[in-house]
C-alpha cells in the first residue's frame, strides 16, 4: 500500500480528516525550508505538499508567487525539491509527500528520469497544476510505473459530464479546488463545500482534500467535516513571509511561528469530527 493510501486508511480508522500543510521548497532559503519540512509531522501534518518553484505560476496568487520568487532567488529548483524529500525520508518513512507545481520544470528535467528520481527520493504523489487530463498521457505512464500517484485537481467549474474524465487515472486522493480563482484570495462558504463534496463522492471512492482558501483553524475544521483533508498554503506562507527580516532572510523565530500555526490547524482538524 502506498504511503498516501496507508495514511488515509489510518485516519479513517481514527475517524478524522487530514491536515496537509504546504511549503514552497527553498523559501526563503534551503536550510529554513528543510527545517520546516522536518518539523511539520511533529506539528501535526498528516500529509505534506511541497511546492516546486516556477517563474510563472499561473494558478497562484501573490502570496505563493512571492514565495516562488524568494525560492528561485535562493536557488530553488525541481532537483532541489527532490533532494529535500530525500533528506526528509532519512528520518520519516511514513508521512506522505506530494510535489505540487507546473509542468515545464518536469519536462525540462525529463519525464522518465524525473519519475525515477522522484520515486527514489521518496515522493508519493504529483500535482501538476497546468496538466489537465487531456494532456496527462505523457506523464501518466512513467508516474504509474514508478508508483507515483497522479493527483488531479477538480474545480467548481468541472461539470458532471467532465468529472469521469478528470477522475479516470487519478490516484492517491482528489484535490478539490474550493473556489473559482487563484490561491490565497477568497474562501468558499461552508454551504458551497457541503454541496460540492457529495457531488464528487458520487463519482469516486478516493479521499478528497479541499484546498484554495482554507486559511484558519475553523476553516480547516469545516473542510474535514465534509471532506477527508484540508490543504493550507497561503496562510502559512504569509506567516513565514511576515517573519522575515527586511532583506527577506529568516529570523530565529521564523520556524517556530509557522510550526505553531500548523499546530493550531492540526488541533482544529483533530477536534473537528468530535463535535460533528
Amino acid at each position, binding site marked *: 500500500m502506498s504511503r498516501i493510501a496507508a495514511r488515509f486508511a489510518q485516519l479513517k480508522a481514527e475517524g478524522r480528516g487530514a491536515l496537509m500543510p504546504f511549503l514552497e521548497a527553498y523559501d526563503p532559503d534551503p536550510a529554513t525550508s528543510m527545517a520546516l519540512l522536518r518539523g511539520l509531522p511533529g506539528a501535526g501534518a498528516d500529509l505534506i505538499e511541497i511546492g516546486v518553484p*516556477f517563474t510563472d505560476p499561473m494558478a497562484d496568487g501573490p502570496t505563493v508567487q512571492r514565495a516562488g520568487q524568494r525560492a528561485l532567488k535562493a536557488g530553488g529548483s525541481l532537483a532541489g525539491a527532490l533532494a529535500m524529500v530525500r533528506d526528509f525520508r532519512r528520518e520519516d518513512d511514513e508521512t506522505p509527500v506530494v510535489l505540487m507545481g507546473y509542468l515545464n*520544470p518536469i519536462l525540462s528535467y525529463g519525464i522518465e528520469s524525473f519519475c525515477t528520481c522522484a520515486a527514489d527520493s521518496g515522493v508519493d504523489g504529483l500535482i501538476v497544476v497546468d496538466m489537465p487530463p487531456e494532456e496527462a498521457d505523457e506523464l501518466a505512464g512513467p508516474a504509474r510505473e514508478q508508483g507515483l500517484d497522479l493527483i*488531479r485537481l477538480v474545480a467548481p*467549474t468541472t461539470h458532471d459530464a467532465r468529472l469521469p474524465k478528470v477522475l479516470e487515472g487519478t490516484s492517491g486522493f482528489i484535490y478539490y479546488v474550493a473556489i473559482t480563482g487563484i490561491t490565497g484570495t477568497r474562501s468558499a462558504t461552508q454551504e458551497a463545500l457541503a454541496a460540492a463534496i457529495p457531488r464528487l463522492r458520487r463519482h469516486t471512492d478516493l479521499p478528497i482534500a479541499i484546498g484554495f482558501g482554507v486559511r484558519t483553524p475553523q476553516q480547516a475544521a469545516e473542510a474535514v467535516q465534509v471532506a477527508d483533508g484540508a490543504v493550507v498554503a497561503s496562510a502559512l506562507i504569509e506567516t513565514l513571509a511576515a517573519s522575515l527580516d527586511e532583506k527577506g532572510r529568516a529570523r530565529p523565530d521564523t520556524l517556530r511561528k509557522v510550526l505553531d500555526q500548523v499546530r493550531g490547524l492540526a488541533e482544529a482538524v483533530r477536534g473537528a469530527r468530535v463535535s460533528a
Partner: protein
Amino acid sequence: MNQPLPNSLRQGPDTRGRFGQFGGRYVAETLMPVIQEVEQAYNAARQDPAFMQEWRRLLKDYVGRPSPLWLCERLTEHLRAGSAGPDLGAKVYFKREELNHTGAHKINAVLGQILLARRMGKPRIIAETGAGQHGVATATACALFGLKCIVYMGATDVERQQPNVFRMKLLGAEVIPVTSGAGTLKDAMNEAMRDWVANVADTYYCIGTVAGPAPFPQMVRDFQCVIGEETRQQVLAAEGRLPDALVCAVGGGSSAMGLFHPFLDDAEVRIIGVEAAGRGMESGEHAAAIGGGRPGVLHGNKTYLLQNGDGQIQEAHSISAGLDYPGIGPEHSWLHEIGRVEYVAITDQEALDAFQLCSRLEGIIPALESAHGLAHVLKLAPTMAKDEIIVLNLSGRGDKDIFTVAKHLGESL
C-alpha cells in the same frame, strides 16, 4: 477562407489542438471547461455565414480593409543601388496592415473574438498587451460593442508605451499594470490568465496572438489569415504571380501567421519569420524563442521557449515591446521543425536603423516590431534577383514607438 488540400500544411491543429508535438491545452482544471466552451462556440461561429458576414462587414467598413499592397519604389531602388550587381535587388512590397483602424493587424482577430464573446454571452473582456496594440484594439472593439474591458500590461511596458496606455483609457478600458516578473508581456499574460480563472463565468479572454491554449492559436490565425488571403489576390493582380519571399516579424507570431498561412502550400514561396535578437543572440538578451530556446510548456501551450536548464522561463529582451516575449505560437514551432518556415533574428540596432530608413525612403513610420521584419528585407532583397518579389508584412505603425526611438537616438521630446 480557401479550403486546405489533402496533405496540406494548413490542416492543423489536430483534435487535441496540436501542430505536430506543439500546442495543446495546458491549463488549470478550472479553465478547461470554459476553454472547451470557447472551442465549441468558435467551431459553430466559423460555420455560421451570418457570423462571418458580420465580421467581414466590420473589417471593411470599420477597419478599412482590404489594406493596400504597396510597391516600395524608393526602397527597392535604394537596395538595388547597394547590391552587388546590376541584376540584383528584389522588388519590395509592403502589406500595409499599419493602415488598419487602431494602427496594426491586431484588430482583425480582436473583432472576430469580440463577436464570439457576444455570441457566448460574456459581457466582460480581458486582454494582455505588450506594445499596447492588442490592448488598444481590444479596448476599441469593446467600446464599439459596449463591453467592459480590462487590459493587463506589464509595468515596464506601461512606461515605454505611454501613448497606447492613454489611448486605452480614452476608449474606456481599465489598464492594470502588472509588476510581477520583469513587468512585460509574459507577466501580463500570467495575470490575465489568473483573472480568467477567477472570473470565468462572465469573462472572455481575448488573446492577442497565435499562442495560448487551443483553440486560440488556431482561432487567431484563422482571423489573421485575411492578411495573407488579400496579399495573394493583390500580388496576383499586380504581378500575375506569387511572391518569391514573405517576411514578417514574429513575437507571438499572429501577424506572421496571418501572412504566411495562406501560402504554406505554395512550395515556391520562401517564408521567413524574424525574431528579435535584442542586444545580440550571443548576449543572451534577446527574444528569439526558436533561435535561442527549446520546447517547453507555458501559457497553455507547448512551444519553443526561452528557459534555463531547470525549466524556469527566462526574461526576453527586445527594444520592441510587442516582440518582448519568451515564447512563440505553437504553429510556428511546428513550421520551424518541419522546415517550411525559416526563422532568423534581427537586433535592436538593426531594427532602429530600418525604422529610420523606412521613414525617410517611404514616408512610412513603421512599428518597431515591423522594423525587425524590414531589417531582414534590407539584408535579403539585395541578394535576390531583380525580377523577384518580396512581400513584407508592415504589421503596425510606429507612432507609439517614437518616444522609445527618440530616447535611443539621444533626442528628448
